[in-house]
Structures are given as C-alpha cells and as structure tokens.
C-alpha cells in the first residue's frame, strides 16, 4: 500500500473537517445549556399524548424547542396539525 500511496499526490483524508463540523454543532448546543432542561423529552411526550386525545398527530409533528437567554428563556412548542382539520375549520 505504501508504494501506491507514493503516487497518490492528492491523498485527502478529511477526518479533521468532520471533527470541525461535529464540534461546531456540539459546542453550540453545549452553550445553550446542553440543549435545555432535562425534562424536555418527557414534556414533549406528554404534550403529544394530550394533543392526540383530540387530534391525530404524528410523533414528528410536535416540536419542543428551548432557547436559553440572559434574563429569561423561551420554550417554543410547535404542533403541525393534519390537513383535514384545517379544512374542517375553513368550512
């Protein structure tokens, strides 16, 4: 292998780039306080259960986002309702 490596002038191992990409994401997450309080996943599940009592929504259609700020933090809950419900309302 060494012999062939010799001729591969542009041998490019971009693991360093991968490292940088992963770090950039991770550090940004760490800085917001590890992605929010520990209860977030549970909150998301319970919210989903409550909403499902009334509307049939997918797991992926409920999004809970936590933003830590100086002074106050915000909790953003996004529920994407299915199409038929939107039509019902319009009619």
């Amino acid at each position, binding site marked *: 292998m*060494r012999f062939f*490596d*010799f001729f591969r002038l542009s*041998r*490019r*191992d*971009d*693991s*360093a*780039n991968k*490292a*940088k990409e*992963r*770090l*950039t994401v*991770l*550090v940004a997450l*760490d*800085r917001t306080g590890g992605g929010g309080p520990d209860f977030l996943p549970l909150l998301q599940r319970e919210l989903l259960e409550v909403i499902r009592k009334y509307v049939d929504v997918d797991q992926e259609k409920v999004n809970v986002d936590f933003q830590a700020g100086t002074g106050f933090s915000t909790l953003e809950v996004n529920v994407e309702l299915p199409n038929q419900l939107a039509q019902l309302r319009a009619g």
Partner: protein
Amino acid sequence: MSKVIVVTSGKGGVGKTTSAAAIGTGLALRGKKTVIIDFDVGLRNLDLIMGCERRVVFDFINVINDGIRLNQALIKDKRVDNLFILPTSQTRDKEALAAEGVAKVIEELRKDFDYIICDSPAGIERGAYMALYHADEAIVVTNPEVSSVRDSDRILGILNSKSKRAEHGDDPVKQHLLLTRYDLDRVQRGEMLKLDDVLEILAIPVLGVIPQCGSVLQASNLGMPVVLDDKSKAGQAYKDAVSRLLGEDVDLRYVTPQKRGLVDWLLRRSA
C-alpha cells in the same frame, strides 16, 4: 501589580502541568518573580515535573489547614532565580482546599510575587473551581482533538460565570488558548484539527502553539521544565508564548510548513 493566571483545560492529560511548569519557568527567566501552585490535591505532580519532589516538606494544604507558614512550604527553584513552587498534598483530598484558606494564600502571595500560576486539576470539580476562582487571566490548554476542544469550551463558560471576577462583576478573566501536541504533518494530511479550526470554535486569542515534540517527555523524565531545553521546538514555542503573555508581538512558529527540498519531500512521502 501581581497577576494570577490559571492553567486549565477541563480534560486531563492535555499538558496542563507541563505548560504551567514551562510558562512559570519562562516568566522567571524573564525576571518576573513567579510562584507555581499545584491545585491537584491527591495527585501531586507539579513537583515531579519541576524536579523538586525530594525537597517537599510542607505543602499548600498544610498552609491552609495546619498553621504552617507560607515560606516554610515554598520551594525555591535551584536553576532559575525568582522561581518558587508551592506543592500540594499527595495524601489529603480536595475537600481540604477551603475557600477562605485558598483566598488568604493567594492574597499573601500577591504581595510578594509578580505572577502566581495556578496549575488546575482536570475535571470541573472543587479543585478546578478553586484553581480558577482567583484568576485574572486563564491559559486554556487544548489538544487539537474533539473531546479536548469541547471541554475547553466548557471551561471558558465556567470562567465567565463562576470566577471571582464574574461574581463581582469586574472585568472578565482574560482568556488565552494554548494549543499543545500540534502535529503539523497530520494537520496537512487533514487528519488533525488545524489552529484556525480551533480558534473559530473557541473564539479566544491564541497564546501559543506547542508542536508535538519528543523533548517534552524527555524533559519530564529529567524533572526539568521543557522551556530550559533551548534546542527543543516545544521549549522555543513555550518561550514565544511567555513573550506574548508579556505583551510582545511574536510570530507563531511551527504552524506553517517549512520549505523542503525535493529529496526531503520524497523521503517524507515514503516514510
């Protein structure tokens, strides 16, 4: 005006003690009266790196808890004037670092020394907090490797929120990046994070880049701070870092490839 500088990293094994020893010694070589304090209670190693392990009688913990005077515990370096070491205890645990006791020792040292270098233990527990609490400046030792960079970022956050300066609303702790174990060949092959990558992520100014160098291990074998080895690249890089710490403008060495002849290039490719 005395300055307290913490040498910290979060992650272990990145070269904190080596760097604290080298930079402390470098400052003393430049005529600054310097003391290096070992905060790693229970894992005392600074004295070993400084080569004064057989001269330890009393330590930092004795001064805090047992009524021993500071100058009974301070060890004067035999090679460099103006250089002192305050070793820690090998047998006690971190709880022995009482906050008021540490504050009193730092206060007393400030009267007598230009630079007080605090060699922090790894981790983010009591010892690390105590080491960084009084800092005016921080040298964050980082390896070009994912876990080390991440931990460094965490430590920067702690410096900004938990240090005395942060708690009192004073000017923030001045932060410096010291990138160690930098292997230029691997960086060029795309196998190692480069200086610019680390700077972009951590967003603090660089104090120095220490190349991966066999002389560091050799120096620790001998109990001699690597900065005293004039021929070693790492020693020179530490000297440059000390100059920058003193406010001088010195170009970074060993971060760009040197021009090589064809034969040299062929040899490297086949190596």
